[in-house]
């Protein structure tokens, strides 16, 4: 069943939509959740919550890129769960490393608690991503959107771990410069 047919089921309020979504994208969303949570039960729960969230917003929504629409919901829900579980202590797993790396883009700035619009930051990040080369952008997103390990990224793109690490490090530096330029960090 293709995506438009699945979305049509949602619009018809046909519960088969969820089964079809689970069949087609269950593994995909699970891998995103598990990269973030490193826990089977929590990841399963987030995937199930993803289907519920999709059910609640379609209609009125009619996503163009259904897979990525689901990916973003799963990522959000998983990260919320991660934060809830690790509210009082440092989180574990791959995501802790991912967050630490991102922190290097903003650390030592004097404005870490400043108020800003998340929407504007999102737009700013997107414009930054478009300035990167395809390879830099791909590796950045596999690491910081999908929270994949360096080893997995290196295999995905036929690169060495060391190459991936160097590219990530350079891209983080560029991001830091971009955020400084845009006034998010001072």
């Amino acid at each position, binding site marked *: 069943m*293709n995506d438009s047919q699945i979305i049509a089921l949602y619009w018809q309020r046909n519960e088969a939509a969820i089964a079809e979504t*689970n*069949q*087609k*994208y*269950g*593994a*995909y*969303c*699970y*891998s995103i959740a*598990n*990269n973030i949570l490193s826990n*089977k039960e929590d*990841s399963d729960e987030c995937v199930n919550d993803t289907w519920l969230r999709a059910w609640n917003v379609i209609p009125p929504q009619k996503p*163009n890129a259904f*897979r*990525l629409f689901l*990916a*973003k919901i799963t*990522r*959000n829900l998983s*990260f919320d769960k991660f*934060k809830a579980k690790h509210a009082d202590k440092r989180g574990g797993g791959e995501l802790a490393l*991912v*967050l*630490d790396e*991102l922190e290097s883009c*903003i650390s030592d*700035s004097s*404005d*870490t608690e400043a108020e*800003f619009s*998340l929407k504007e*930051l*999102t737009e*700013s*990040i*997107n414009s930054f*991503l*478009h300035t990167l080369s395809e390879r830099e*952008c*791909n590796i950045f*997103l*596999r690491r*910081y*959107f*999908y929270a994949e390990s360096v*080893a*997995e990224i290196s*295999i*995905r*793109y*036929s*690169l*060495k*771990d*060391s190459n991936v690490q160097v590219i990530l490090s350079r891209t983080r530096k560029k991001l830091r410069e971009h955020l400084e330029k845009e006034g*998010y*960090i001072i």
Partner: protein
Amino acid sequence: MKKEQLFEAINEADDELLERTEKKTDRRNIWIKTLAIAACFAIVASFGISYALMPNLPKQPSLPEETTIGTIATDTPQVTNEIIQETTVPPVTTIATEKPQPYDDNLPKLTLETDSSGGMGFQGYMAYDISELDAGNPWSEDWKLDKLPVYKNPWLFNSQFEIKAISLEEKENLLREIAGRLGLDTESLEIKNDGINNETINYYEKKYGGRDKIPKDYLYANTVWAEVDSIKIEVDRSLMAEIWFEPEKPLPDGYKGIMSNNEYNEVIKTAEYIKNEYKELMGMKNPQISLFGDYGIGQDDKAYRSFSLYFFEGAEDKTEQIINYNFNTVSFAVSDEGIWIIRFWNSNLSDKVGDYPIISADTAKVLLQNGQYLTTVPEGFPGAEYVKKVELVYQNTARYSYFMPYYEFYVELPSMERANGLKTYGIYYVPAIEEQYITNMPKCLYFN
């Protein structure tokens, strides 16, 4: 700003950028062969990406008298899961009539491996005509082969993507050999690795009372490399050697690059040049060209063809040709500036399990029609009239514990044809080994 806010902001990355991340690079090895698909679809396909990331994937119970190759059975309800789904197959009236060869008790039974890519699209290639998707596979449907070898893979990834069966010394020796072929002084090479640093080694030396007493695992290095002027040689975790030229090694006047080049005549001219000039570096006496070019959709919505160039050693013997084509190849990444990367792909075929009886391509096609295939294509098999090509290939990734042959069917997907006539050919696999040696013959096995 907090790191969590930054992570959340990345959630709204543009869909087009996220889709692009799923297109992989130029590996042609079949289970990692992943080339671009139309931007409106999931992009990539692969049999062998992220099993390690799928801890919920059920394991196949071990079968004492059998060789358990894989991890997933498909013929029992309890193993159907969110990653692998059996879909309903209409009953077919055609049945295979080829008579199996007498059963050989000495050959262990095999279990198919279907390593999930975690839903990252499917394996398919775009072209205007199937004739454009010719990678120079020496196998031909006319070949009457009764048996083909199956090998155990001694170089299997562990969960950390390491292959500890390959020693540091082996990696360094290969690096020196490649350096020697380049005419470099192998004695003065300074070889580095990504293992633990000297300070840590000193710590362990004290702790364990001598370097030779440190557990070998502690000193494990995935990659070794050496740099001489503009050349960098690396040998990676799977004993794949690479030569990087930075800047690129220029081609003579009149020769064009291969990556991002739509012109077949220019590409093949460059391929022929490389074949003659780099024969010795490749370590081949009679290199054969394997040039594969399919299409991708650019951001301007136009179709662009790009090629990947491989060489494999020619041979008289048919089985040897198949083995050479599927294993131990050399690939060249060539931009318009010149030769950028040369990769020497290695597989360890020292542990042969046996020569297994194989079915013909015709019988495999009947099995395909009967739904006994493996695929990452998210659509059902559209029908025999859409089968446009068949090839015989081996799976050869370090994720699999065995190397075994499959028939690879290129099936035109009518629902995916674009307005400009560009077609998408989805890949469906049927095991080439006779069914009596397979514990989990697929029934329309979709995994993704």
